[in-house]
């Protein structure tokens, strides 16, 4: 009797558990999928209503075709590149066989037009350079103005003045200054890459700077008192109290900065003609073929997806570094 009731209770519990798993699955997987499906339907419906000079606005199906096309182009280009190097090596080997004293020139790099995927790579490289430069400036300055009220008063008006400036406003100035100060010889870092990196840096500086400053100012006064009682010197005070205490805020700033950097980058690349996703979009726009809109749409969705992945990566870093697991937001 007792056993049967217990076993039936277990069965009940199992049912209950299965029920919660099912409802969780519905919520975590079903609802997002439903949302996406509705979005695709609305997109398809709306796209069919829009007729442009380049033909009908692409719906999801056309965009998928273009995405496959871009991938095929990439594979083709890869093969061509491989063949290019094989040819070069073979030619050198043949020459060496004819004339043992022959010294081969350096292998010439492949000169094909950059594919969509190569452009993604360039964009990522540029955004990380700009973001890294921005962080290297913003975190120390943020700590400094967070620690010193006077410094904050001195620098705050400048921050407020420069913070709202769009990358498009900076870009012409940066381009001219980079051209004046940096003369490229062949093989150096391209000017356009430096220009867009610096533009990204100037725009993505502010969230990290301000959040770091806020994080440092809001270090608990009790912890500051501990530091005073221990007579920690300035460096040790920053390293063992201030920095760990403000890590959660610093990372909040870094996350905001990285997403700003990614947004700014696309605009900067369009204008600076840095071979990245922004240039791809611009080139397709100028190209104006019947495929262009679809290809731009692929780029737009890719930009969104990469932005999302970058943010997730930062969140993961924040989780690893932060001592306060509750402070890590979604």
């Amino acid at each position, binding site marked *: 009797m007792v056993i049967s009731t217990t076993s039936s209770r277990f069965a009940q519990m199992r049912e209950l558990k299965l029920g919660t798993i099912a409802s969780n699955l519905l919520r975590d997987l079903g609802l997002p999928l439903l949302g996406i499906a509705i979005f695709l339907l609305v997109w398809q419906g709306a796209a069919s209503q829009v007729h442009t000079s380049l033909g009908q606005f692409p719906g999801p199906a056309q965009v998928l075709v273009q995405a496959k096309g871009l991938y095929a182009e990439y594979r083709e280009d890869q093969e061509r590149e491989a063949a290019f190097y094989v040819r070069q090596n073979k030619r050198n080997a043949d020459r060496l066989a004819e004339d043992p004293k022959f010294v081969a020139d350096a292998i010439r790099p492949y000169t094909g037009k950059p594919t969509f995927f190569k452009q993604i790579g360039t964009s990522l490289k540029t955004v990380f350079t700009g973001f890294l430069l921005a962080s290297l400036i913003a975190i120390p300055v943020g700590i400094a103005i967070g620690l010193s009220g006077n410094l904050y008063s001195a620098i705050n008006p400048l921050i407020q003045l420069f913070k709202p400036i769009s990358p498009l406003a900076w870009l012409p100035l940066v381009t001219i200054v980079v051209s004046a100060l940096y003369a490229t010889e062949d093989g150096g870092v391209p000017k356009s890459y430096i220009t867009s990196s610096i533009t990204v840096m100037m725009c993505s500086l502010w969230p990290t700077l301000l959040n770091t400053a806020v994080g440092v100012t809001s270090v*608990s006064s009790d*912890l500051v008192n501990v530091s005073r*009682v*221990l007579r920690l010197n300035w460096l040790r005070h920053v390293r*063992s109290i201030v920095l*760990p205490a403000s890590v959660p805020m610093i990372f909040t700033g870094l996350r905001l900065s990285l997403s700003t950097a990614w947004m700014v980058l696309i605009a900067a690349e369009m204008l600076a003609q840095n071979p990245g996703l922004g240039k791809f979009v611009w080139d397709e726009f100028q190209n104006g073929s019947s495929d262009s809109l679809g290809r731009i749409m692929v780029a737009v969705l890719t930009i969104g997806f990469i932005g999302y992945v970058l943010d997730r990566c930062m969140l993961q870093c924040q989780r690893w570094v932060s001592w306060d697991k509750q402070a890590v937001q979604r």
Partner: protein
Amino acid sequence: MATLLELTQVSIEFKTPKGTFKALDNVNLKIAEGEFVSLIGHSGCGKSTVLNIVAGLLHATTGGVVLDGREVNEPGPERAVVFQNHSLLPWLTAYQNVELAVKEVARGKKSRAEMKAWIEHNLELVHMSHAMHKRPSEISGGMKQRVGIARALAMEPKVLLMDEPFGALDALTRAHLQDSLMEIQRDLNNTVIMITHDVDEAVLLSDRIVMMTNGPSATVGEILDIDLPRPRNRLQLADDAHYNHLRHEVLRFLYEKQRKVDDFPAAGGGAKSATTVAEPVDAQPNVVDIKSHELKNREVA
């Protein structure tokens, strides 16, 4: 015994938007080596301000503090502080928290192995050896306060300053920690200044109780010698006539001579809960102190 610490004509004023606020006026106090002194008084009477001046965290407007023949003008590890809300660094383990202090104080004086032994010894003193590699978020409030005490003791201070060390703990944990503190005190015989709002705690632990008048312009009202023999046992003392007499003296000072009418309705209210989480106010029959005013003072400072 020789005087170790002397406060002479200490006064302090804070500038507020409404004008200057004189928190302390002419506080004089002499503390002998090895003495355990409690400061007790109503909220806003500036007990914490006195402690912070001794710690060097606040500067007296007039008068001064002399410790062992030297004037106090900045904080330092020879006046270690046990803060009310433990103030452990949340990203460090109990061991690392004590280590931070030991590394700073014993730099160049102790070898690495000696430091390790010293840290472990101090955690052992407060019965925290079993959890020394846990972070503050993983241990209870009482354990955090134990670590806070270990950190202060590890600095080998000339004076140990305790700012309502058990104020945020429940009654049972508080009793455990008081017993631990008496045990440590029996072995080490530190000079201690403790702020408390608990009359029983003051009488049980102290050699002298310094009762402060109400602020503003608070000062030392009466000093009561607690001549109960040590070791003291809380259960035996509960029926002890002399103990109850002393306890009564403190209560009389607080409730008759320095009655603070306007503060009582707020005793269980918002002001307290704003500073400490889940304070079991009902469990403490002798709570007479609210920190709100002192907090305001700190903000002004």
